[in-house]
């Protein structure tokens, strides 16, 4: 044991990786985070920063409960990070909206929510369907084309780039070794320890947590796990800083604490992170102006495209290897919403050496075989 450099090697320096690393360091583990370089395909730099509950769990009921657990833990998580780093990630939970621009969109939304909440075993939480007038009472600047929307009081948001920086600052302060430009090329188990090959050197650790996003697809089989992914590209439009005008986040439009307005969210089956489909940005802008006409003359200062970390069915994968004991996967799309869970629930499990099946059994990748067999 003592021969290993680290107790745990976390593969991936994005939000999932650093939240897990921070949680492991709090458990007293010696942790190394192995990351790629500046031009890494990195979802953590292109996400939408919602801490979101509504509509989560259609198709896998336990995901709703897992999401609410993290959402409930978020305020304390943010507070702890502030105490450790002095940085405020501006977590707010004012309740959030999904806006419909036609009666047809509103009806589709209502049907989706009905199907979600009719699932057996789903945790009970409130999401209301509101008409135009009801939405306007809470979002006075909506345009006449907004037919209505759904509202969930559990929804919130955060400054996700500051969260990214804060977690890096926090792991640095806790003595976690952070190694950028250490892309992991291969992992082998040698006796009790894992040997991780990188272009620079080999890293040895007793345990491995795979938090490398879509790259988990290639890494997981090296340790007897699987992680089927289907990455997709999302684009975001960002405006200049504005005075506060929007109290609640909308799933496709939110005002950050800094004043900028972020507008999303698109899905394209592309995996080139450098590209940008202008017509997609145009659609996002067009819908944003219909939702909030006062934004028409606001300047766009940036656009982003990023590759979503997306498992094959969209739900998280948490697994431990049977053939390579000590190897874990921590993989999901919603790295912001679930950051509190990764730091406060998953990391302690990895520190103890075993996942708590009562909490995360539904998220094993074994579900894909059950589905295929059925």
């Amino acid at each position, binding site marked *: 044991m003592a021969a290993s450099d680290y107790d745990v090697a976390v593969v991936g320096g994005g939000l999932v990786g650093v939240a897990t690393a921070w949680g492991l360091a709090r458990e007293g583990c010696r942790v190394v985070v192995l*990351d790629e*370089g*500046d*031009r890494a395909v990195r979802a*953590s*730099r292109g996400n939408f920063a919602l801490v979101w509950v509504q509509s989560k769990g259609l198709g896998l009921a336990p995901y709703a409960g897992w999401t609410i657990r993290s959402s409930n833990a978020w305020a304390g998580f943010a507070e702890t990070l502030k105490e450790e780093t002095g940085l405020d990630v501006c977590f707010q939970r004012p309740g959030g909206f999904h806006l419909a621009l036609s009666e047809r*969109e509103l009806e589709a939304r209502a049907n989706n929510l009905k199907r979600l909440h009719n699932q057996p075993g789903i945790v009970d939480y409130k999401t209301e369907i509101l008409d135009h007038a009801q939405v306007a009472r809470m979002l006075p600047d909506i345009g006449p084309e907004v037919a209505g929307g759904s509202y969930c009081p559990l929804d919130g948001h955060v400054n996700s*780039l500051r969260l*990214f*920086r804060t977690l*890096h*600052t926090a792991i*640095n302060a806790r003595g976690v070794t*952070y*190694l*950028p*430009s250490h892309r992991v090329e291969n992992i082998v188990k040698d006796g009790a320890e894992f040997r991780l090959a990188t272009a620079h050197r080999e890293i040895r650790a007793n345990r491995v947590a795979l938090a490398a996003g879509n790259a988990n697809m290639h890494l997981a089989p090296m340790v007897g796990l699987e992680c089927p992914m289907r990455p997709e590209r999302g684009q975001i*439009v*960002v*405006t*200049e800083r504005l005075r506060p005008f929007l109290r609640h986040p909308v799933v*496709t439009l939110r005002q950050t604490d*800094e004043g900028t307005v972020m*507008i999303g*969210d*698109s*899905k*394209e089956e592309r995996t080139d992170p*450098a590209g*940008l*489909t*202008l*017509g*997609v*940005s*145009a*659609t*996002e*802008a*067009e*819908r*944003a*102006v219909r939702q909030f006409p006062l*934004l*028409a*003359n*606001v*300047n*766009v*200062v*940036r*656009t*982003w*495209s990023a590759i979503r970390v997306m498992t094959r069915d969209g739900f998280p994968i948490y697994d431990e290897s049977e053939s390579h004991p000590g190897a874990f996967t921590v993989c999901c799309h919603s790295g912001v919403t679930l950051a509190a869970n990764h730091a406060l629930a998953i990391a302690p499990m990895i520190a103890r050496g075993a996942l708590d099946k009562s909490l995360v059994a539904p998220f094993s990748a074994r579900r894909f075989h059950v589905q295929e067999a059925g």
Partner: protein
Amino acid sequence: MNAVDLASSYDLIVIGGGPAGLAAASLAARAGVSTVLFDENPGVGGQIYRGITSTPVTNRLILGEDYWAGEALANEAEASGAVVVNGATVWSLDPERVVGVSIAGKARLIEARRVIIATGSQERPFPIPGWTLPGVMTAGAAQTVLKAQGLLPDGRTVMAGTGPLMWLLAAQILRAGGKIEAILDTTPRRNFLRASPHLPDFVLSPYFAKGLALLREVKAKVPVRRVSSVAAVGDGKLREVVSDRGRMPADLLLLHQGVVPNVNLALAAGTAHAWNERQLCFQPVLDDHFESSVPGIAVAGDGAGIAGGTAAAERGRIAAIAAVRALKPAAAVPDPQSVRQRLRREEMGRAFLDWLHRPADSFRQPEGDTLACRCEEVTARQVRETADMGCEGPNQMKAFLRCGMGPCQGRLCGLTITELIAAQRKTTPAEVGYYRLRPPVKPITLAELASLPISEAERKAVER
């Protein structure tokens, strides 16, 4: 040109109406290639010939013969048949050569078979303490309002920096009857050693005699001090300029430490760039015809690497000849060899000038509370500390500190951030790299973006 009359496609789109753009558009249009030139400013000329068709400074001695050389280029473009649109902001160029342009608040997409980017240069960031105070501006800015509006610095004016443009502007201000309290020359003394092997070429170049005359003209009237530090001090506006040679009260501080390629549009178009160690900047990787790594997109003028206005025009011609040959092989074009010969002569003295005026590290890599990013007000200390934490590139730095996320889109901080990271992590700017840039490279309104054509698939990517 009325913007509504624009076609939806052209053989050639030239972006930028400085010497490179004007020369390129004129040559191509004369060869019968359908050509449109977009320029953001109210009139053509770019920065070097700013206001060439409208300047109120009619005494030709003030701006000098090199400025008035721009008249011929403007006239040539006017007569060439090229469509010239001013007040046209190009905010997007994709590898398929679709150009996004806004004119009078309306955005549109126009296609081209070839594109020549001639967006020129900008002044190198000069991050000293207090460089954001009102009363501090670039030398180029003062020159712009002198040329275009006939505005002359008034009150106590100090200049600080290095490079030919600073001396030229000083001479122009003096000829116009203005006064300069002092010039703080930041040229490091040891630069001469590095430059001296290139002295013979420089002596033979057209810059030599002109440069010497300019220095004599200015030094006869203005006290010049060599300094190794400069700071602007004031509360809400500039009050004094402080250097290692003392303090002096000032109303206006004009800063200059050379120019660097304006890379935003070329980078957003996906063209490859490389670090130029002599000129301390990134510049596009180009072939002999100024063609970039993206087929059909060329970069001419100072945007291709700094060489000055006369060279820019020749580079524009070379790029245009290549475009004409690709688009209309039978058309008559000037002999490219004679153009290249003129270009070589223009480029001759460049190495000496570059090495001589290479700004000191301390003027490029600030310390402490000096702002590295003006828009988001990010300090040098924050950047250095974040680099120490393991942040090894500008894109991660942007995510952590928001540097480069403001409206200038990294133009005033990009090189500083790259150099700070390189210094802190003991590596090279080439290794560190630059910001990833995406359209719009100039802000456009949401309504303008919303007005662009949208395909069914693009709509479906958002509406679910």
